[in-house]
């Protein structure tokens, strides 16, 4: 087997050195009853040619985004990633290293994490960021737990504009810890409702902008109300490219900002792996979950980087830790950092403006389709439109035409009574031809 260096000769010589009669002798501690005698019902080992054939066949049965007019968003956005990013993250030294436990021989990973934290802090407008979470949704759930720890309160209020998956993930985690999550009814824009819902028991409010309907919201008013009530403000962003154009969570008074970072450097990957961004105010740093990379000096006084404040973490604090996270999303964070280092502030702002311009183009085109109503008032690169038919049906029908028309809101929340809403998104990769294909397809399908 090509991945196993030992030869049978090695094996018998090593057994001799060990003083074991055979390999069975090394498994003596396994109860007889539990030893797998007969080989398992699995195919035998296969060469590269064979494995590549089997997997390519599976891949060929999916309609790749790049092979169709594509308008899906709703928490995962398709952006162009420079070729150098994927090349660099495949460097052996990055790809095949572990969490940097031995800093003297892990400065490569550590310095890039320090760069990542600094970039995330700048994007979110907050002073501190951690070295990544699994994704945006788990970052959001951890933020709610953190807010409860900090405020010692047990209720979290989630805006009706929060991505339903995020709400569910937060609920799942909070529930078992006895923390109540109150989700307001799904709404295109519920700024007032959120403010109204805040009271003295509120640990935090969770607001998303741009929200799941694409609505861009200034959280400042909500933040003021929350802070007056002694609650923390968690701002969620699922489209990191928006940081290039919109007010940052920090500017709007967020205490904690969490975001899905996959738009930058990572790619769609059918939903994972992604990378969660987590930033907060300085006074909350010792409550932050996950790894932190910090600057220090070596014995010769040279600058270097290490994982730090680990007294927050599971391997030291065990059941008192701020989170159970261990493996995070290191390589995706690296991809994010490299892409961001290529873009720079100038490039991200440019990219964001193109995204907004493309989305306006999309909106204008859709507005001209009979029966289609534009719902989202203020958007970045994604918006909700109302169709005269259930959106899910229309999307299925257009898929048959080879068009990936967007995400029916009912796919995320079947019970909201918003089956006629379709979420559509445009990015720098969206061409006018694709937009024409969508409007054409929609007109046909809605006409029937």
């Amino acid at each position, binding site marked *: *087997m090509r991945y196993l260096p030992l030869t049978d000769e090695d094996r018998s010589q090593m057994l001799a050195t*060990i003083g074991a009669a055979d390999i069975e002798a090394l498994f003596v501690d396994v109860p007889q009853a539990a030893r797998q005698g007969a080989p398992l019902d699995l195919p035998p080992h296969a060469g590269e040619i064979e494995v590549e054939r089997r997997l390519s066949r599976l*891949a060929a049965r999916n309609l790749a985004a790049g092979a169709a007019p594509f308008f899906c968003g709703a928490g995962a956005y398709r952006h162009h990633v420079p070729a150098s990013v994927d090349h660099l993250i495949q460097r052996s030294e990055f790809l095949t290293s572990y969490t940097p436990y*031995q800093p*003297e*021989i892990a400065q490569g990973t550590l310095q890039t994490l320090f760069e990542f934290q600094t970039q995330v802090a700048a994007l979110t407008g907050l002073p*501190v960021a951690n070295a990544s979470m699994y994704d945006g949704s788990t970052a959001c759930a951890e933020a709610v737990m953190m807010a409860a720890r900090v405020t010692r309160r047990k209720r979290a209020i989630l805006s009706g504009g929060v991505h339903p998956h995020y709400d569910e993930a937060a609920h799942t985690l909070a529930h078992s810890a006895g923390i109540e999550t109150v989700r307001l009814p799904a709404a295109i824009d519920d700024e007032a409702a959120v403010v109204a819902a805040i009271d003295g028991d509120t640990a935090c409010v969770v607001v998303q902008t741009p929200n799941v309907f694409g609505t861009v919201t200034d959280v400042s008013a909500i933040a003021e109300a929350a802070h007056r009530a002694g609650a923390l403000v968690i701002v969620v962003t699922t489209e990191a490219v928006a940081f290039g154009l919109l007010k940052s969570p920090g500017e709007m008074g967020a205490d904690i900002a969490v975001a899905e970072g996959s738009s930058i450097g990572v790619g769609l990957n059918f939903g994972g792996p992604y990378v969660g961004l987590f930033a907060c105010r300085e006074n909350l740093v010792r409550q932050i979950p996950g790894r*932190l990379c910090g600057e220090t000096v070596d014995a010769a006084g040279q600058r270097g*980087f290490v994982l730090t404040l680990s007294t927050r973490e599971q391997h030291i604090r065990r059941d008192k830790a701020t989170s159970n996270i261990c493996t995070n999303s290191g390589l995706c964070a690296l991809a994010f950092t490299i892409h961001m280092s290529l873009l720079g502030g100038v490039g991200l702002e440019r990219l964001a403006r193109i995204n907004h311009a493309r989305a306006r183009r999309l909106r204008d085109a859709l507005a001209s389709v009979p029966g289609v109503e534009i719902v989202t008032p203020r958007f970045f690169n994604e918006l909700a439109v109302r169709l005269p038919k259930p959106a899910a049906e229309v999307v299925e029908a257009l898929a048959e035409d080879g068009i990936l028309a967007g995400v029916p809101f009912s796919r995320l929340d079947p019970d909201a009574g918003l089956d006629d809403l379709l979420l559509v998104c445009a990015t720098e990769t969206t061409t006018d031809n694709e937009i024409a294909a969508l409007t054409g397809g929609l007109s046909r399908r809605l006409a029937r």
Partner: protein
Amino acid sequence: MSLASIGRPTRPAESAPTPHPGAALLQDEPLIFELGGWSKTGVDLSDETAPLDDLKGLTRAEPLRLPGLSEPEAVRHYVRLSQKNHAIDLAIYPLGSCTMKHNPRLDEKMARLPGFADIHPLQPLSTVQGALELMEQLASWLMILTGMPAVALSPKAGAHGELCGLLAIRAAHEARGDARKTVLAPTSAHGTNPATAALAGYGVVEIAQTADGRVDLADLAAKLDDDVAAVMVTNPNTCGLFEREVLEIARLTHEAGAYFYCDGANFNAIVGRVRPGDLGVDAMHINLHKTFSTPHGGGGPGAGPVVFSEALAAYAPMPRLHRTGARLTLIEHADGEAAASLGRLCAFHGQMGMYVRALAYMMSHGGDGLRQVAEDAVLNANYIKVRLAGDLSVAFPDGPCMHEALFDDAWLEGAGVTTLDFAKALIDEGFHPMTMYFPLVVHGAMLIEPTETESRRELDRFCDAVLRLARAAKAGDVARFKGAPFTAPLRRLDETLAARKPRLTWTPTEAG
């Protein structure tokens, strides 16, 4: 203002007083923030734009202050940094409990097929049937290898899998109206076990350990009462030993109405040879980034699917795969037959990129190859244990170990050299140190896990180096250890300072 305003001024690496060893090839490299490029970008974008009228008052006040590098500069920056890392592609990476094995390049290639990498999680299911079938095949391999009837793929890493398992257990008890508050776990458990139990709202009670490094059955029995929701045991355990009495542990646990959670991080030692389903396990996570070789990437991403027994299957999280004839669908909402589900752990369906890699790895090895994996992993660990036993002190000398060999620091007694010093000296020999000071049950622990992908030659190189150092330590050559490492890009780093005066982001200084 930010943390950076406290504490020491940033010292750019350029002003390094002495040239590094190997300076000819290993380049000093400052932070990107010290390379300029504040007004540049390394990405050519169209100048398309549109009025921002409808975003009035919602856009950034001042421009985003982040540097952009041209591609030549960016590539050079990250290539230079990469060379400051140790990696499995450079030498053995014997971190106990981490299973640092070779990462096949075929798996990387497959994961990048547009049919897998360039599909959206919310595309119509009719357009992702191949992806769903890949998930189904992965699930089937995992169920057959573990002998368990159900599996949840979505957990994003081992710790997330632990959470998934404990939440299913909580849901199972709650369904019965039996609200239990305690989780039992041995002192030797990995930190994520107690941390997860606490996160899931449980109190944690530690189980004592026997002199031979296993769970103390008497203590377990004594602590098992009707408040215990679950017993969390790692098997093979973190001392690298198989829990001989695992069947009894399961019996006692079930007798007490609790569930048996097995931490499957060490599954590599038994894959293809032992099925956790035959050990009475109710739930176990599998780190695809360990046993099934998806790359660790300097700290992730990973994936932590959880297999369940019949007793817990109904409580598995959303989403779930469902097949009707030729068509695969995803059940994404906890109603109907999924009403008992613990709910959703994260957005979308989990770590697809890792699923592709893991399945490619499984297909490549096949049933026969995976069994060989376990055997070679155990063989390599025992070989190291025996080769070092003469000079180091084996923590639990009786009987073979499984996939990793555990030593304590008794043999360093009086040498004036700590486990940490020894580890750092190993760096100067060209090796990554073993896991230090874990598990906690052993003083000055050194936990060595070679994995099956190390050749005998590499094992011998490593053992020779360890023995060379061990003899130097005993011979009193303390300087070689206290100052170590000497040949790395940096000397020993001051972790106390880092924690006392945290600098977590870069900010401009007079220097910068």
